């Protein structure tokens, strides 16, 4: 039964958290300690974090700043931003060589004129597919048609599709059908009843909880996921199990 207070019933890893400041305004969390306090308030055990600088300015610099967000307990899982340019891919390869890459996140190159198509991304996507490194892809930064084409061209790529909104209602099923390895992150996806419908259609393994904090509050989607027709096992997979599998984390780590 719902109550005035909420805490999750299952372990939770937030798959989508941004650190650092945007030009639109400072982040409410200026340190790992503040972010961990926010996670504690909402019952979130761990979070996958990337740096704001990596979104649209510099993935390599963003990744350097991200190092400042390592916490002592290992609750913050670093996600490196990447663009299909030599300097960025070299940085990721170097980090990978040291065993530090669990996932990467696509830097926005579409707004600079590079469509997300195989001719522009082949080296990067071949490397990620061969290395088994999952790629987080913000839907707002790629054309749907390009994404479908590219997902089909790299069937071994583990893609996590970020930020589907109700304006994506017509394309979400097509995206999930384009690649059996594609996973949908749920921070913005609110069409009524759609989480249950999608889980029924594609299975719980294709979805992960993310908040996209601090763009969005950390709690509401987590609350939502705890008040659906899904079973406890499905809930546990969406809230943590699937992202543990994607990142190669031990269960409950």
């Amino acid at each position: 039964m719902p109550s005035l207070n909420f805490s999750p019933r299952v372990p939770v890893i937030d798959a989508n958290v941004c650190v650092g400041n945007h030009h639109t305004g400072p982040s409410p969390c200026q340190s790992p300690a503040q972010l961990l306090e926010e996670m504690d308030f909402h019952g979130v055990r761990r979070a996958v974090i990337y740096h704001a600088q990596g979104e649209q300015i510099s993935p390599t610099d963003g990744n350097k700043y991200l190092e400042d967000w390592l916490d002592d307990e290992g609750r913050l899982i670093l996600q490196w931003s990447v663009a299909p340019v030599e300097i960025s891919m070299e940085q990721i390869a170097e980090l990978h060589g040291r065993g530090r890459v669990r996932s990467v996140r696509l830097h926005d190159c579409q707004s600079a004129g590079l469509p997300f198509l195989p001719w522009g991304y082949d080296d990067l996507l071949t490397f990620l597919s061969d290395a088994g490194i999952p790629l987080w892809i913000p839907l707002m930064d790629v054309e749907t048609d390009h994404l479908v084409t590219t997902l089909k061209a790299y069937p071994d790529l583990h893609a996590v599709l970020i930020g589907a909104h109700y304006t994506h209602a017509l394309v979400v099923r097509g995206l999930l059908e384009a690649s059996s390895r594609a996973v949908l992150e749920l921070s913005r996806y609110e069409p009524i009843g759609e989480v249950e419908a999608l889980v029924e259609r594609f299975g719980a393994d294709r979805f992960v909880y993310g908040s996209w904090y601090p763009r969005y509050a950390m709690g509401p989607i987590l609350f939502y996921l705890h008040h659906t027709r899904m079973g406890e096992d499905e809930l546990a997979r969406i809230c943590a199990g699937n992202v543990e599998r994607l990142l190669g984390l031990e269960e409950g780590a």
Partner: protein
Amino acid sequence: MIDGTRVIDYHGHVGRWERYGMVDEPELLLGAMDAVGIDIACLFHIFHPDGTTGNDLTAKFVARNPDRFVGFAYVSPTMPDRMVPELERAIDKLGFPAIKLYPPYTPWPFNEEPWLPIYEFAQDRGLAIIFHTDHFINSRPRYFEDLAPAYPRVNFVSAHCGNVPEARAEAIAAAQKYPNVYLETCSTYRTPGVIEELVEKGGADRVLYGSDMPLMDPRPQIGKIITARISPEAKRMALGENAARLLNI
């Protein structure tokens, strides 16, 4: 019902907009409402400018589950001759207790002349009006500062609370100045700290939970209230007590 508080969702729709996944199947709405303890949802149909077509569809929808849904009247100044007669019909014959207005579907900011007959009607009846508000010229919450003192028997509700910080500040400022301005919470923007800001600056007695269902699922939207850093008393007021007072239900 949540912890003994009757929950009223102040912002919902009848009508379909399939391209965005919006489908007004009663079972879909009721299933989501039941999952989180929403007792009553206020609904309106804004897709027909004549008002009559949508209001009849709303009445039909509500009649299937009269204990769970409350209909609001919709009219548009783009069909000015029909506005007041349709309001009279919707309030007196269909039994709707409040009005919904949607300025983006018109050429006029909502403090301009074409809208005034609606406010005069609401003033006579002592009705609440919920407005779509945002940062675009037709829907700025700052217009409440013109209307609230001019129509003191009308309760003005800022839907989405302006959506973005600049417009939200206008809505809060109006609520601070006038006791008949209310702040409704639904928004696809779920910015951290917004519910706390509304309660702290606008007052817990002015905040109304709304979801925009079925365009959006009511569960994450009510989750904004439940997971906010506000007191249990403030949650109870936002979730239902304020709406019950406003609608006298």
